[in-house]
């Protein structure tokens, strides 16, 4: 398809995103924070990540955002940029970063919605810059030329081997 929307994540940006998430988790006093691609795939995370089924979390969050986006369009809004789900113990704050990623913050009574909102805002601006850098790299490649796909040289045998079990 060669769609321009393909996302390629290199080590450098991954580390910068992870650092930003770690900082956000600390400053917002959150249990865990996740950065998720709008199609439901996890990009990076920080905090008590092991306690959650991350793959399911990512997919359902993306579904949630997609459904809410649909609702926004129905009433003539461009998007609802923040979603908040309040539970008895734990709460979820969802926001859009750089138009293409979803930032999910899980927090409990040790934090507050106000604090999370504030910190998310600041952190989002930082992450947006990282996404810009990613976008440029995806287009130009890390060395200034288009990246060679690791799949450019796969053979039919490689593909068949995946299904051989």
């Amino acid at each position, binding site marked *: *398809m*060669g*769609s321009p*929307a*393909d*996302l*390629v*994540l*290199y*080590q450098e*940006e*991954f*580390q910068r995103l992870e650092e930003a998430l770690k900082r956000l988790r600390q400053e917002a006093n959150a249990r865990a924070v996740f950065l998720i*691609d*709008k*199609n*439901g*795939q996890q*990009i990076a995370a920080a905090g008590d990540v092991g306690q959650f*089924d991350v*793959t*399911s979390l990512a*997919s*359902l969050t993306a*579904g949630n955002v*997609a*459904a809410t*986006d*649909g609702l926004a369009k129905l009433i003539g809004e461009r998007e609802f940029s923040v979603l908040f789900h309040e539970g008895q113990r734990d709460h979820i704050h969802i926001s859009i970063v750089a138009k293409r990623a979803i930032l999910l913050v899980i927090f409990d009574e040790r934090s507050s919605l106000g604090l999370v909102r504030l910190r998310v805002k600041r952190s989002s601006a930082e992450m947006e810059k990282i996404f810009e850098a990613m976008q440029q790299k995806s287009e130009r490649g890390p060395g200034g030329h288009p990246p060679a*796909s*690791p*799949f*450019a*040289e*796969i053979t039919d045998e*490689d*593909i068949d*081997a*995946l*299904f051989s*079990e």
Partner: protein
Amino acid sequence: MTFINYASKEINCKIVYYGPGLGGKTTNLQYIYSKTSPEAKGKMISLATEADRTLFFDFLPLDLGTIRGFTTRFHLYTVPGQVFYDASRKLILKGVDGVVFVADSQEERMEANIESIRNLEQNLKEHGFDLQAIPYALQFNKRDLPNAVPADEMYRILNYKREPTFEAVATTGIGVFDTLKAVAKLILIELRKK
């Protein structure tokens, strides 16, 4: 939209099972789930109504192994087949890498199959995809039913671009993995072209 993560050496692809209501899309995923080893799969999620009809989507993450050092992960989704859920169907096609069309072989469902393929074509277009170009496999499900239309006749009616086509009985698993493999393979071949 394929997501290549060089940091964790992962590649994630999204496959969507499309087709008319009650055609067996969820059953395909359930069979795959039941036959995959625990370490290769994540939890299967079904957002269904109380009557067990798909409301939003089913979701099943699958690890197929590694290619050139990259973990190859497929995220399988189904759409709700019932006509009035079109808004939800559209959402799920976002970022799709490959489509499996699950057709219902029963004679009285042929109209619904045709309509659903048209709907798929239209909804893909809205996301900027072309069914003519996207990795695509066709499955004739419910071959065990007495009122199943002959396969060659179904092919004549439903074939879109000479896509790989499989006869299946999803409840017992016949044809289920063949279909999945075919579309996964097409996706990887597509990746190679990039």
